[in-house]
């Protein structure tokens, strides 16, 4: 224990001596970057050195006691020590035969990785060396929240802010951190806001709580155009095709049949709230499959790519081996400063993953960065001004539920989604975070089964009722779990034209009573042109289920309009429920908690409610199908029937009744011909 503490002290104070190096990884970093290749070449020497170091362990221990008293080493938790001590182990055995213990493997992995990064480093540092003329900034963040179901929710956020305006006069042609491909898209199509998400899997609100950034299964795209755009539909069409190319996704399948203009559900999130829905386009592709080919272009938009920073964790073989995967891009204009005189553009790239640690970890709830991503963190992105990892430890204030290793010196509290959460924070720009192993591998070991997760206040379900292929009924259940407060939500349903909605069958009931929506915006569909759009404002009574039902009729399509697998069914995109939900913090009535009296009388605080968007399940609906194998037969048979009608009428119309004279037989007629030829009287 003690010995280890000494090591960290020594490396930090640059009192490097051959005697002190007990870990080969430690030896590398203090070296000047120029020496690195050489060093990599002589890794065998390093191993020897390491061996020498182990030999001198005893010696080092002696000297450590002296050094510790000299340099005021910041307090480190004993936990951290224990784990790092465990990590010391592989140094004693040769790292080549390390396929027994995952931790050993990890260590090995790190070894070569860190050398590689050391090689990369000089270039990147050179790049930022000149004073940046670009007023831009890049931040990265990873939030990990252990979920009560045993799953782990990891949410990456990368934010690039650029103090420039794509749309005012001057053409922007020099790009620094902001990806050029997106900047060009914004200026070419006069985009005010762009939100795009690709999601594989469905977010289970009841088991996982609210996500930081919700997204529906499949692809979702919504764009606010500038009010200077005259041909919004044309721009939208082109934009979807361009984005389809950028993200290697089938966004080119977005056309007028799945595009809507929601009147209330999707307001601009950035500056200058142009709220005329004429400039908004919203589309959802529930059938879109998200995979590596979408992740790679998404990663390329990051300033460091997947080379450094948090993005090194994004290895697709792990990310797509998860219960939920969602990558998104949000571009919006924001204020440059408090006065908001100038505008800057914000690009937010987010990636949310839920790992099913429980099943992949053979029933153990333990998780670590390495287990989830098969990588550990070794450095921040050099271009990032801030690079942090947060771990949600709200349920674990005294460490009775799990051990989080290494323990973070920093705890932050913030109100997220109406709930006060505590996070352990790791700052990657600070070298101390990585400790002596030069890598950060967060690890959680559970002590007991987790307690009850607080139910999310707003939850919804959707399904299709009815049988047969003629009609059906869409049921949307919206749950309000708030014990005493009612709140309104906006429900938006987009239903393709081939399910013909009957709006007069719309019923909204809560607690067995009719609950008339105070606002309904309904746009009926046009066949092969426009989907149905139904938006309504529903007041949810406290602690209730509100059921919205609407009947539909399934259309028979032309045989060319069916998908290649018509009996699989047709997808109907998730409906969107957005609303201001009363905050948990505000509803806290737990008087037992220690609090100043003046703060507790009125329940409402500043964050009395927060915005939540919930996406319901997409629906899979079967339609009646014609027989695809017999277009020729059908054309022939129907034409035959029409021809029978035509023929019989034609017959009766053009001919007249005549007495049938017995006509001579063939033999007789032949005989007559011969007789005529012979000049003999005919028969």
């Amino acid at each position: 224990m003690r010995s280890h503490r000494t090591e960290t002290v020594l490396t930090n104070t640059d009192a490097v001596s051959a005697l002190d190096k007990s870990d080969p990884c430690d030896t590398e970093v203090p070296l000047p970057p120029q020496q690195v290749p050489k060093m990599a070449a002589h890794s065998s020497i390093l191993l020897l050195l390491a061996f020498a170091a182990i030999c001198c362990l005893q010696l080092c221990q002696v000297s450590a006691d002296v050094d510790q008293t000299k340099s005021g080493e910041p307090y480190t938790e004993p936990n951290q020590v224990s784990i790092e001590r465990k990590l010391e182990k592989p140094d004693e055995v040769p790292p080549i035969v390390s396929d027994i213990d995952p931790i050993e493997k990890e260590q090995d992995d790190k070894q070569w990785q860190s050398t590689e990064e050391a090689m990369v480093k000089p270039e990147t540092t050179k790049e930022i060396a000149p004073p940046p003329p670009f007023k831009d900034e890049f931040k990265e963040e990873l939030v990990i929240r252990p979920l009560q179901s045993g799953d782990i929710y990891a949410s990456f956020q990368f934010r690039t802010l650029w103090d420039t305006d794509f749309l005012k006069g001057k053409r922007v042609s020099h790009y620094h951190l902001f990806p050029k491909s997106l900047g060009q898209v914004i200026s070419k199509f006069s985009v005010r806001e762009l939100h795009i998400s690709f999601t594989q899997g469905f977010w289970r609100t009841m088991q996982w709580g609210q996500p930081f950034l919700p997204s529906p299964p499949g692809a979702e795209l919504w764009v606010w155009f500038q009010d200077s755009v005259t041909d919004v539909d044309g721009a939208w069409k082109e934009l979807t095709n361009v984005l389809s190319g950028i993200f290697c996704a089938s966004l080119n399948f977005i056309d007028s049949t799945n595009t809507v203009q929601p009147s209330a559900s999707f307001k601009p999130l950035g500056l200058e709230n142009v709220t005329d829905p004429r400039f908004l386009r919203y589309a959802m592709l529930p059938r879109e499959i998200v995979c590596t080919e979408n992740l790679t272009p998404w990663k390329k938009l990051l300033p460091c790519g997947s080379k450094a920073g948090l993005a090194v964790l994004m290895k697709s073989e792990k990310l797509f081996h998860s219960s939920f995967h969602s990558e998104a891009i949000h571009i919006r204009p924001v204020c440059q400063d408090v006065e908001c005189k100038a505008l800057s553009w914000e690009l937010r790239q987010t990636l949310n993953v839920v790992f099913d640690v429980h099943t992949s970890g053979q029933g153990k709830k333990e998780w670590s960065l390495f287990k989830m991503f098969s990588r550990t963190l070794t450095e921040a992105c050099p271009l990032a001004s801030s690079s942090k990892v947060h771990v949600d430890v709200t349920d674990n204030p005294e460490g009775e539920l799990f051990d989080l290793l290494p323990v973070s010196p920093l705890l932050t509290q913030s109100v997220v989604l109406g709930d006060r959460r505590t996070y352990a924070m790791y700052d990657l720009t600070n070298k101390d975070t990585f400790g002596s192993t030069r890598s950060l591998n967060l690890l959680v070991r559970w002590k007991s089964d987790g307690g009850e997760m607080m139910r999310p206040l707003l939850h919804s379900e959707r399904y299709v009722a009815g049988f047969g292929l003629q009609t059906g009924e869409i049921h949307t259940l919206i749950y309000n779990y708030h014990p005493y407060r009612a709140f309104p939500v906006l429900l938006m349903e987009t239903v393709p034209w081939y399910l013909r909605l009957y709006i007069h069958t719309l019923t909204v009931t809560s607690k067995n009573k009719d609950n008339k929506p105070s606002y309904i915006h309904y746009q009926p569909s046009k066949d092969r042109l426009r989907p149905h759009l139904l938006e309504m404002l529903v007041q949810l009574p406290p602690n209730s289920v509100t059921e919205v039902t609407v009947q539909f009729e399934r259309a028979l399509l032309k045989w060319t309009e069916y998908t290649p697998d018509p009996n699989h069914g047709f997808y109907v995109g998730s409906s969107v429920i957005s609303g201001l939900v009363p905050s948990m913090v505000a509803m806290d009535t737990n008087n037992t908690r220690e609090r100043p009296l003046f703060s507790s009388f009125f329940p409402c605080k500043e964050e009395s409610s927060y915005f939540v968007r919930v996406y319901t399940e997409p629906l899979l609906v079967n339609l009646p199908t014609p027989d695809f194998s017999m277009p020729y037969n059908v054309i022939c048979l129907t034409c035959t029937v029409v021809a029978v009608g035509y023929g019989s009428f034609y017959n009766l119309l053009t001919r007249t009744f005549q007495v049938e004279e017995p006509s001579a037989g063939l033999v007789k007629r032949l005989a007559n011909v011969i007789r005529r030829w012979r000049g003999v009287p005919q028969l």
Partner: protein
Amino acid sequence: MAAPLTLVLIVAVTIRAALFRSSLAELISERVEVVSPLNAWKRVVEGLALLDLGVSPYSGDVFHETPLIIYLFHFVVDYAEIVYMLADCITAVALYLAVQHYNKNVFRKQKYALKDDRYPHDCLELMRSPKEMFYIPLKVAMFYLWNPFTILSCVAKSTCGLNNAVIALFILSTIKGSALLSAIFLALATYQSIYPLTLFAPALIYLLQRLCLPVNLRRPSFWLFASQYAFMYFGSLLVIVCLSFFLLSSWDFIPSVYGFILSVPDLTPNIGLFWYFFAEMFEHFRLFFICVFQINIFFYSIPLSIKLKDHPVFLMFMQIAVISIFKSYPTVGDIALYMAFLPVWNHLYRFLRNIFLVCCVLLACSALFPVLWHLWIYAGSANSNFYYAITLLFNLAQILLVSDYFYAYLRREHHLSHGLYLKRKDGSEATLVLK
């Protein structure tokens, strides 16, 4: 004569009222054989709901009724059942009166012809007696009101019943000789569903006959009356269309009603020939075949008018039958209208060739429609071809029925001029053939 008719009406209304109250009403109103996208009651209600929401009912593709219908039901939506029963009764009474009047005319003509000795002597058994003609109007009313197709259509509240009422009123006013009323009702019927346009020719011929004007294209008197009638017809059509424009102050209803009828975008299965044909059609032939199929309906009116220019009421029957077989969204209510005329042609019975077979096919098909629909849509053990096969057979039977009546009518006319028992040159009994 009024008492039996009243009895028929009371029985018909009782049946309908009972069915309206039963749980069957909902089942019937969902049947694709009974309602089409054009006339389903569900869609009328949807249109009203859209109006209530402040959305134009024609902005979507669910509502395809004319503005007058939506205006009518805006006021009487709560009494819809009464409206539909009333419409059926009006149709029956109008047909009753029309047929009564027509039979009187027929009998009078026959009397004059007999007096003038214009018929061959062996045709006496073809002559119609007042005794057999006496019950024909009542039979017509009964055929319409008690026809299961009409009852189903009424219980499903298909607006087809209203269209039938308008057409029946048109027939009545034409047969009674009121040119103006006839033109107005014809315009109304055309406005409701374009196809009754083909009834213009028989109405014109009948009115000309009534005024003893010869149907001769060279006569100026013919052209004078024809232009008068056309003016009345198109004038009232224009008034109605403009009225609908002012009701909703938009022309949206034109593409939504007439465009929908003509271009057949909705392929919901029905008893017609269009739905499966255009569901399976190759995309580049679609327009061609739509044109062919639509022209097919209108085209028959020219040769039929020429051939039957002396028999406008039979021509009317033929036109209604052709429309109901070949229209883009047919329902059983349309069939019921022309079937109501069958008792009028009672005297043709001896010349019908395959009436038994056709009746059996029609009955069997009517029974098989729901069975095969269930197998396809609910049980999943059959596919669309099964239902399609039945619609083909049903239409084939209808075509045979109509052409059989046409044949019988022409043959009787031939016998009336050439004698019933025709002889060959050699004196043996002759058989008639079409040549």
